[in-house]
């Protein structure tokens, strides 16, 4: 969307178009990643967020630049919604020094401490203690920051989840736990892995406010996140959102999806978060098909430019292999 067009819109409509643009950016970025992966340009594990964009975008909209975020290995959406430059994320996929983690992390480990984005954590549940600790630091200093911690339904089966729910509630820490319930822990369906599938109920048992949210509707996510973030920031202790969503693509690029029916995927695609908001804005006349197409073209151009920059960017010299293991000895 051009700046002039944004100014012409009502603030509410401009905001919603911005949400749409952010979701579309994640969608286009990841569609491109899948192509680049198939072409052998990027390697490693690549976990696509497609279908879940409303969660990252809706939650991020409720945070300030001073808040902190802890993410998972499915982190492209969280990173882009946080405002990490698209070209730094693309360069990270290519393992280049211009990547947001200097190419050392790859798809699963996007970091940008300047934006208080404390990284993609690829041990399921492993980010929760970090979020608790970041929030503890804020509380000890008297800062009014909130730490948003993303994790999936699979993490709820980990011991660390329960340890962290308890610790955050016990110490009244300013954490927003964002459970992205996409119904599968890799290939294991929620009902096959969890004795109690009402995840908000489980978090609630630790004495924190917890409720389910339609994770396909970015406006519902933003509304819930604003309410929860406000309460956390006001000293209300940790809150838990169970964001009910769905992964449209395979778990990773290696997954033949033997564990779910295509019809189930098709059902969920009817609630595609991008199409849902785009349809609303089309119906209200706030984003026409032509404007949507223009937005899409603009993003495609941005992504193409990011790919060109990433391809041209330097790789770390092998002589620097063991950098960033320890800080250099002071001279």
């Amino acid at each position, binding site marked *: 969307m051009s700046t002039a067009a944004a100014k012409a819109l009502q603030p509410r409509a401009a905001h919603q178009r911005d949400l749409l643009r952010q979701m579309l950016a994640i969608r286009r970025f990841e569609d491109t990643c899948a192509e680049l992966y198939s072409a052998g340009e990027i390697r490693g594990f690549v976990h696509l967020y497609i279908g879940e964009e409303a969660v990252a975008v809706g939650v991020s909209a409720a945070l300030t630049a001073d808040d902190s975020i802890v993410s998972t290995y499915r982190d492209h959406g969280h990173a882009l919604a946080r405002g990490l430059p698209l070209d730094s994320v693309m360069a990270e996929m290519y393992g280049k020094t211009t990547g947001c983690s200097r190419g*050392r992390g790859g798809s699963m480990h996007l970091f940008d401490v300047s934006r208080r984005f404390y990284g993609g954590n690829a041990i399921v549940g492993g980010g929760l203690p970090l979020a*608790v600790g970041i929030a503890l630091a804020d509380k000890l*200093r008297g800062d009014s920051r909130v730490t948003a911690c993303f994790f999936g339904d699979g993490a709820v089966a980990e011991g660390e989840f329960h340890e*962290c729910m308890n610790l955050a509630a016990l110490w009244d820490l300013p954490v927003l736990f964002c459970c992205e319930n996409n119904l599968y822990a890799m290939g294991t369906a929620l009902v096959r892995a969890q004795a109690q599938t009402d995840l908000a109920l489980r978090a609630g048992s630790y004495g924190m406010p917890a409720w389910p949210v339609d994770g396909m509707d970015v406006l519902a996510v933003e509304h819930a996140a604003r309410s929860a973030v406000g309460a956390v920031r006001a000293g209300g202790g940790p809150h838990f959102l169970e964001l009910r969503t769905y992964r449209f693509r395979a778990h990773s690029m290696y997954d033949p999806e033997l564990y779910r029916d295509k019809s189930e995927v098709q059902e969920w695609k009817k609630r595609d978060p991008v199409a849902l908001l785009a349809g609303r804005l089309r119906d209200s006349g706030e984003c026409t098909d032509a404007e949507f197409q223009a937005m899409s073209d603009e993003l495609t151009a941005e992504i193409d430019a990011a790919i060109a920059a990433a391809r041209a960017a330097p790789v770390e010299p092998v002589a620097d292999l063991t950098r*960033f293991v320890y800080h250099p000895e002071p001279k």
Partner: protein
Amino acid sequence: MTGTEVTGTEVTSTEMVKTTYREAMRDAIREALQRDDRVFLMGEDVGRYGGCFAVSLGLLAEFGPERIRDTPLSESAFVGAGIGAALAGMRPIVEIMTVNFSLLALDQIMNNAATLLHMSGGQCNVPLVIRMTTGAGRQVAAQHSHSLEGWYAHIPGIRVLAPATLADARGMLWTALQDPDPVLIFEHGSLYNMPGTLPADAGAVDIRSAAVRRAGTDVSLITYGGTLGTTCAAADALAGDGIDAEVVDLRSLRPLDDETISGSVARTHRAVVVDEGWRTGSLAAEVCARLMEQAFWDLDAPAERVCGAEVPMPYPRHLEEAALPRAEAIVAAARRAVGGGLT
């Protein structure tokens, strides 16, 4: 440890005060809390109980529950929270009750503390200190007695320290807190009651170098932590036989101070490595491998190892004693090295 040379400590006062290893460690924690608002202590029973080994006794009353923070029995969560707090600018000291329990937090130590700096391309600092009790000698059997510091020394990205003297118990913590990288401090459980004296103004010591605790010319006895006393006793016994042993205290298990280790062997031409950890894949194995790489032509005899027996620690006293490096075994190994070597 009287009569041994303590290097790495700046002695600026002649006034000596009586203390113990436990009190020296407590004084170190107190000093850190006084000097830096970002420092806090967190762990199981560190507050009201006063610490499982009474290291933090009295600190709750002095500093309050925000800074002397009792945790639930959630090793992974509170170690990870220490990492998170360090990322966010604090200087946490996390106490884990024993090394066996630290395995419940191994994921956080290995996959986060040791790794975040690298996988973030140098962005994430984890200036965290984790203290834990290690080792056997108290008949507490197979889930409270092991020496796993050698495992931790395998991991790039962390520093591993083993204070074996009062000066190091008093002085390593502050230096570790100044380090931008995560530091693990292993306190051998048999040392807490060790009495002695320290200068009244004892303070920070370096955490990078090994120390020659006893100079000698015939054989280097290389050890660390809880077996330093046993090794010094062995050196005394060897002296009675006319064998002049040098005792090297590693102090830092990662990184190892190759220069001091190889330097000692260059003088004595014989090495016995003493390690309470299990022999296979032990820290002692690493030291021996480095001697092969760096001091092979200085050696007049094969390097010897005296390690813990490869058995989960049994409860009965006589079996526990048999499982641990004993002075007689060190003496025998040193005699083999001296007697069996080139002349």
